[in-house]
């Protein structure tokens, strides 16, 4: 790993000032993706600006039918939060299924969202729940935020401060994980609000996407059986050593059924 200067400022404004004042610098939250990338020299920032010392990025609160979770909250904190469990238990369950306990003790919501790994769990939750990514300067709808593999509209010096999740009537998440990394080979989040159903898929494609055929089938009959005969196309899905595109397409159907059943 190349060496770098390290800063841990106490506010978002100070973090941005530090980032702007140092060449080739990068924000880091829990570091569970960035540190491994730096070890491989796939990232070699001249300076790392840690976001872990910023109180304003922390906290979980209910606001007008939504749950607002600070970007600096770890996966463990989200998974164990009574507020999250009561409002959107599927979201708590999803956070508790990321990586392993030690990764969950360091990794954060904001870090995962900003990294936008195509096999990460959170993107499926954000898209299915119709969440909004809140930064220091604007609000971005989840569907506009995830633009493909590791692609987001974030500016270099932009910091995600929180994510606002509208509380649905019900939601469920099911994934088929890579047994080593626990990243999703295929993961499906289903969220229902009355007749409006959103189905978001992670891990199977080059970025999170909505399975509109499933959404239409579930809008009329919200049951796992309603998905009989519906499928997603293998075109454009990822094919690698874990699974072929065709197998991923199959898994998306199975995970979608399980997610619907998990909605209760």
């Amino acid at each position, binding site marked *: 790993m190349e*060496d770098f200067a390290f800063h841990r400022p106490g506010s978002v404004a100070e973090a941005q000032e530090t980032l702007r004042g140092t*060449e080739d610098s990068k924000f880091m939250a829990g*570091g569970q993706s960035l540190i491994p990338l730096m070890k491989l020299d796939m990232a070699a920032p001249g300076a790392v600006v840690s976001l*872990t010392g910023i109180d304003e990025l922390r906290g979980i609160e209910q606001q007008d039918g939504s749950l607002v979770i600070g970007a600096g909250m770890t996966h463990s904190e989200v998974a164990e939060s009574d507020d999250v469990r009561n409002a959107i238990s599927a979201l708590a369950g999803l956070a508790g299924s990321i990586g392993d*306990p*030690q990764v969950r*003790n360091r990794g954060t919501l904001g870090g995962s969202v900003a990294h936008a790994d195509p096999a990460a769990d959170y993107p499926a939750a954000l898209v299915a729940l119709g969440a909004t990514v809140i930064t220091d300067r604007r609000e971005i709808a989840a569907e506009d935020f995830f633009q493909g593999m590791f692609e987001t509209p974030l500016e270099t010096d932009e910091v995600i401060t929180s994510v606002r999740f509208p509380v649905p009537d019900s939601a469920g998440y099911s994934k088929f994980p890579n047994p080593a990394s626990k990243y999703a080979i295929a993961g499906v989040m289903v969220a229902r609000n009355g007749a409006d159903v959103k189905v978001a898929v992670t891990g199977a494609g080059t970025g999170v996407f909505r399975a509109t055929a499933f959404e239409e089938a579930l809008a009329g009959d919200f049951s796992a059986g309603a998905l009989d005969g519906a499928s997603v196309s293998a075109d454009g899905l990822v094919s690698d050593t874990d699974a072929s595109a065709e197998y991923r397409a199959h898994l998306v159907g199975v995970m979608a059924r399980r997610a619907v059943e998990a909605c209760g």
Partner: protein
Amino acid sequence: MRKVVRRGNFVFTYVIENDDDPTTPSTFRVYKKEGDGSWIAGAGFETTRPGTDGGLGCSATLTFTEHPPTLTTPRDEPCRLFARFHPLSGSLSMPTVSLTVNGQAVEGEAEGRTLLVDFIRETLGLTGTHVGCDTSQCGACVVHVGGASVKSCTMLAVEADGADVTTVEGLATNGTLHPMQTAFHEHHGLQCGFCTPGMMLSGIDLVGRNANPSEHEVREWLEGNLCRCTGYHNIVKAVQAAAAEMGG
């Protein structure tokens, strides 16, 4: 103006990319930072960029004797300067990391890139924390930071500045084994022992959150700890027995 700041004496390798005028000398100047934060010009020197290969990938090695040095080049775009510093042995002045380890205040120097596990093993000499995979898979390096188990191969030492860290050496008190250690002993929860420190620290974190974990919950929790000897059965038994002993 690009500026790179490091402390200490260094051999410095620089690379200029996209240099449209490779024959123009680049002047590098060493600055010294004063107590009030201002920078005072120190010994300057001049070097001519070696080579004429069109601007990519040239480098030179220079030795700084001034410290802490700041490197600047007067050339703005389109010249891009990338600097890598290679510390010379025995003359480093690195950031100091202060933390509490196993109840004792300790401090030591660490580069930005120094991993917490290397700081624990090499700077503090606590070699009970192991490096298995170095890719946050195996969990041999698990320690507690602020009471939560983390993989110390995937955390920087500087991130632990000010933190309270517990390693396997801190589990026993006054020669009496921690209940988790006793349980691993009694249930033969180890063979070669390489994964054991991480297993125990992970297990203690679990019991702190879930006083009476089921076998299934223990197995799920140990997801991030690999054992290549035991098949996990006795490890799971040990964690459950320790939980009972710890008051579950």
